[in-house]
């Protein structure tokens, strides 16, 4: 049984850089000589739809996807997406989530309203949730698009990889012209959760 496997699910909205963040995360175990599998579904991601990626790593990883109830971590780039994927968490799973709210189609056309009690509902379920204003931190750094790396920085303190391994993974995956902003965003995110 592959009980040493760590399961991280990254969820967000098309355009938020969820897949790029997943590639950074998947690079870490690869650099550490571990087995890793990452699964993403393309298709309608650019059209405002939900984007979900699965990253699993350990000594030997078989299945490419995480099943409901199996995730150690749900990393949510958007508030409602955290709620929509909370059932993927294990009993002892952790949510690290951006507080940003992006309305979806039914909300935009006035048929639904954006739920305003997501944080309290997840708390009522006993979910170990860490809410962060990653978009605000990224905006302060000059580019809200770096919110993905801020969130990754905040999440980095939950895993055992050392900080320089993360920096190395960022340099491997992120194009050179964006690396300085992303390193700053990562450091700022990491400060949010460092204990």
């Amino acid at each position, binding site marked *: 049984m*592959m009980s040493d496997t760590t399961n991280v699910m990254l969820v967000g909205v098309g355009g938020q850089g969820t897949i790029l963040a997943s590639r950074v995360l998947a690079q870490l175990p690869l650099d550490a000589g571990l087995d890793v599998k990452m699964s993403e579904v393309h298709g309608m991601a*650019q059209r405002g739809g939900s984007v979900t990626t699965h990253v699993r790593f350990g000594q030997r990883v078989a299945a490419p996807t995480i099943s409901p109830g199996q995730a150690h971590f749900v990393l949510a780039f958007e508030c409602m997406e955290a709620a929509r994927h909370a059932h993927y968490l294990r009993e002892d799973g952790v949510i690290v989530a951006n507080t940003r709210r992006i*309305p979806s*189609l039914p909300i935009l056309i006035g048929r639904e309203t954006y739920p305003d009690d997501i944080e309290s509902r997840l708390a009522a379920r006993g979910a170990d949730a860490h809410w962060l204003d990653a978009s605000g931190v990224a905006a302060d750094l000059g580019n809200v698009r770096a919110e993905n790396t801020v969130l990754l920085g905040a999440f980095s303190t939950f895993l055992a990889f050392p900080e320089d391994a993360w920096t190395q993974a960022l340099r491997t995956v992120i194009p050179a012209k964006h690396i300085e902003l992303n390193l700053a965003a990562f450091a700022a995110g990491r400060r949010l959760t460092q204990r």
Partner: protein
Amino acid sequence: MKTLMSGNEAVARGAWEAGVRFASAYPGTPSTEILENMATYREVRSQWSVNEKTALEAALGASLGGVRTLCAMKHVGLNVAADPLFSSSYTGVNAGLVIVTADDPGCHSSQNEQDNRYYAQAAKLPLIEPSDSQEALDFTRMAFELSEEYDTPVLLRVTTRIAHGKSPVTTWERAEATAPAYERAMTKHVLVPAVARPRHTAVEERLARLQAYAESSPMNRIEWGSTRLGVISSGVAYQYAREVLGDNASYLKLGMSFPFPAALARSFISQVEQVIIIEELEPFLEQAVRALGMGDEHPIVGKSLIPRTGELDSRTVALSLAPALAAANGRPAVADRTPANPPTDGVDPEALGAFGTFGTPATGELASLLAPGRTAEQAVGRPPMFCAGCPHRGVFYELGRLPVMVSGDIGCYALGAMPPFSAMDTCIDMGASIAAGLGFQTALDILKPDKPKRTVAVIGDSTFFHSGMTGLLDAAYNDVGVITIILDNRITAMTGHQENPGSGFTLSGTPAREAQLEALVRALGIELVQTVDPFGLAQVREAIAVAMGSPCPSVIIARGPCALLKRLAVRRPACQVDQDTCRKCKACLRVACPALYVEGENVQIDAETCAGCGVCSQVCRFGAIKQAGAAEGGEE
């Protein structure tokens, strides 16, 4: 040093390493990245074909001509290419030919979840199923050897999770390949009946030799664990089986699953107590296993437990197996689950002891897989929608207001079927809109000859080139008054911006001859051809009215670039709502634009998101939406 590669990248890399020099495809999720990656290799001439049929015909021609060739398509694309597929089995190859079918269990982005393994059986071609990226690379290389050694095209099947899943890969160097010089071989390549008959015999003989190869192919292997349970599996399903059962089972892991290695399977089954066939979709392996007739001695289960619909995951496999394993452990047997309704509610704790174990309770990963499912939080869904600045928005806004039947097609514009537009009646297959619209129009004409409703076919530029042209020729030839709107957004958008014959560029980015839609549709016999700017609602409305005024088949070309296409991007100032003029009627929300949102009583426009297309301003009857810097808004 290993690198992380998707299955699609690995297939392209493997083909390159095998010395491939020509590759062809029509884009389709989840296969598209295979050719996009092939195009990065200088040694390979890679092309987008207009459809899968021409892609495979070109590939077969190149193979006969003497260069190793790869041809890729999504599962439904192989339906389009089925004609040359069956013929290629008879002609055989010269240089190696590998055909990739990317199946989509779970319909992540497809109109069905057909299991293309049956194509290998039907066309009598060897079938290869990698189960991770390393196998995708290695098996692709081996497939080219196999193709040449047995004079056969090889069908390589990936599924969405293999194609788009990434895992570590060790790569190799490229080895140039040489095939015998081309020689005319009338008795092999000219499939007239007198040639085809003996070729069928040759194909059957080849199949027998391929089966002998499958028995000892390194792609097929046995992994021994507990012999109380023997799993037979292939592709990604093998990974789920491994995840759930680990070393508590033995595995017959099939990388080459057709022709079925019967002797290997017999040997495996004879050494295990019970057999479970774990495969996605159809009982393809199960039928072959059951035909061995060993079920009396070694109980066999498959689709009676494992769902036949949708894609598998570890939890589905675990929950499906629990009752059978409990029964095997001497606990009361549980009735078969309904394949169409995979269990989601957790299992009786009694059954847990069955896993792994045949004795000890499930722990760790398995326990989490078997735990009663948490219910999902109630939250609003997030369906895909037209982007801000999408040229399709205005067309579907207008179509939704008309009493017409809308015959849809495959592309982003299928979103026109969704609320609030709800402006589509059918979406069938690539290119179907015009011919299906012709048929629907004919039915309307027959049933209500006095006052027939009109049918409007909507089709994208790339889909029109793919297989819409023939339907339009049908309409012109048979004089059926279907109105065709070609949504010409200058790119194949849905699959992520692939070039096409109308876009002006090839797959490798070099300038190309640009197919002229207006001239093309006129040449097919359409006399009423109108070109409109889809961002001008009045133009769209007027053109549809003119078309409806004519009983003849006609074409409207709605030409406006995809909002995400950078090279044709037009910078326009964002729109703003003048809250003093605004009557708060919210009619503008009916264009379902991601830039428009409600804040209290007011509709606001997010300037960052807004592309300034002005469609919302034309919907506002009070002129309350204006482009920043513009003098006037609404037009009605």
